[in-house]
């Protein structure tokens, strides 16, 4: 039932944004941003149990913590919102920059995993 409410909300706000775009394009962008925020927060509501379950599974398989993976997911999700809102507003250059920044940050967040990988490989090769 929650999902149908969300879809209904999206459809209504799409129509509203279309009306706003005709009279006041600036408010259309803001309304789209507000709707994205509401949807993201409600989607994240179901995210916590998912993360706990995945971390339990990960602990069973290997000792590595999934914190870097979680950080990467967070960075990517936020960057995606920013990129899409920039594209809607017509700022493709800004969208590209947000994407670039997100890639760099994800690489930084994933560094510990690279180290573990290198140690694993060097252990195998010896």
């Amino acid at each position, binding site marked *: 039932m929650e999902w149908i409410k969300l879809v209904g*909300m999206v459809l*209504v*706000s799409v129509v*509203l*944004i279309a*009306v*706003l775009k005709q*009279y*006041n394009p*600036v*408010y*259309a962008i*803001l*309304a789209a*941003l*507000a*709707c994205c*925020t*509401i949807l*993201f*927060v*409600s989607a*994240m509501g179901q*995210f*916590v149990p998912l*993360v706990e379950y995945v971390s339990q599974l990960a602990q069973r398989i290997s000792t590595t913590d999934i*914190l870097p993976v*979680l*950080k990467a*997911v*967070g*960075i990517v*999700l*936020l960057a995606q919102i920013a990129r899409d809102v920039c594209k809607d507003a017509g700022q493709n250059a800004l969208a590209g920059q947000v994407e670039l920044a997100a890639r760099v940050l994800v690489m930084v967040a994933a560094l510990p995993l690279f180290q573990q990988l290198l140690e694993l490989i060097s252990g195998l090769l010896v």
Partner: protein
Amino acid sequence: MEIDLVFKIAAIGIIVAVLNQLLIRSGREEQAMMTTLAGLIVVLTMIVGEISQLFQLIKQLFQL
């Protein structure tokens, strides 16, 4: 954090647009620009509150 936020923004946008036209037609371009700015500031303050809530949630969820 429900859809009424989107409704509020849409309502403000349309009212400001109508006021804008009204003021322009009656020859007061400056006031028209002022009302548009005022409406924009009101909507921005509402949105900034929601965005800060979103960032708090992301930081807490993903331990960023």
